[in-house]
């Protein structure tokens, strides 16, 4: 299946919000999403973006169909005064029916490359401990659990794991 990873554009905002809500629903927190399309537009595509977004789209069956947005990642840059710039992965989601196709790995690879290019020393994110599939997905790729207790965790990819992830795919 052909998929394309690209930078999000203003026209993608409705899809971004749709996917944010889908992920929140998956985490049983849908009622917590108060963000609107208007805010996403102003905050991501104004003079000073508060976040960046990449999306994955899949071409429809017929060439006349619009491509469908099936995955996204929302990230921004943070700062750890001990080790410097970090890429913070705020949101990362692939629609259920499109998993297992390498879309998630492709997104992470792109982001690791970006982190290295921008001289970040790590990529950080938070995962709910009971989200076993995601925990395993990240651990397989060398992520460290910084807060080894139950509940939310801070994950970090260190330099070596970033380099590995940034390497071209074996496929």
């Amino acid at each position, binding site marked *: 299946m052909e998929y394309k990873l690209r930078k999000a554009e203003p026209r993608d905002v409705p899809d971004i919000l749709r996917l944010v809500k889908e992920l*929140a629903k998956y985490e049983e927190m849908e009622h917590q999403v*108060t*963000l609107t399309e208007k805010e996403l537009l102003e905050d991501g595509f104004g003079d000073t973006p*508060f976040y960046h977004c990449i999306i994955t789209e899949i071409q429809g069956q017929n060439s006349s169909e619009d491509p469908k947005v099936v995955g996204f990642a929302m990230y921004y840059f943070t*700062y750890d*005064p001990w080790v*410097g710039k970090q890429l913070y992965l705020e949101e990362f989601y692939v629609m259920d029916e499109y998993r297992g196709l390498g879309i998630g790995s492709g997104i992470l690879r792109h982001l690791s490359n970006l982190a290295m290019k921008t001289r970040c020393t790590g990529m950080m994110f938070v995962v709910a401990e009971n989200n076993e599939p995601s925990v395993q997905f990240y651990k397989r790729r060398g992520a460290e659990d910084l807060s*080894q*207790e139950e509940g939310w965790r801070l994950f970090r990819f260190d330099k070596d794991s970033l380099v590995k992830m940034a390497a071209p795919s074996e496929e």
Partner: protein
Amino acid sequence: MDFSIRAANLDDCKDIARMIMELAEYEKVSDHVKVTQKDLEQDGFSKNPFFHGIIAEVPEQHKTKEGHTKIGYALYFHAYSSWSGRAIYMEDLYVMPEFRGKGVGKALISKVAQLGLAAGSHQLNFTVLDWNKPSVDFYLSQGCFDITATMGYHCMRCEGEALKHLAQL
């Protein structure tokens, strides 16, 4: 005790680097610190800064025996919640031991809250080590709540009324 709170500038990086190390020592992880004064200058004070700083300063007559007048700091940056939008993340908050209990910490976090609200933030997030009881108690007393109650690292959040109140201190 007289003190002032102001935005950090390039010249403050030496003292910020010093106090980052002091905070890391307090947190028992000073060997983790790799960032240098030069990194701070580049990363915080170039065209697209990765963080912002606030400094607490005392007049000359209150300086430490080593001659420091910059006795506290906060580091923060703009963050984003995919659920609620603009947020502020407070990365560090530190007051030198001999200047604690005099309202400096409150003033620093209040300034961060003000700047956060002015920038349209809906929440202020930060983390605390759970054994750091003086800090946990201080933050809880300011109206924050603990989002992850059973962990080593706690994410704390001030939002809505508590945030507005904090900005008015």
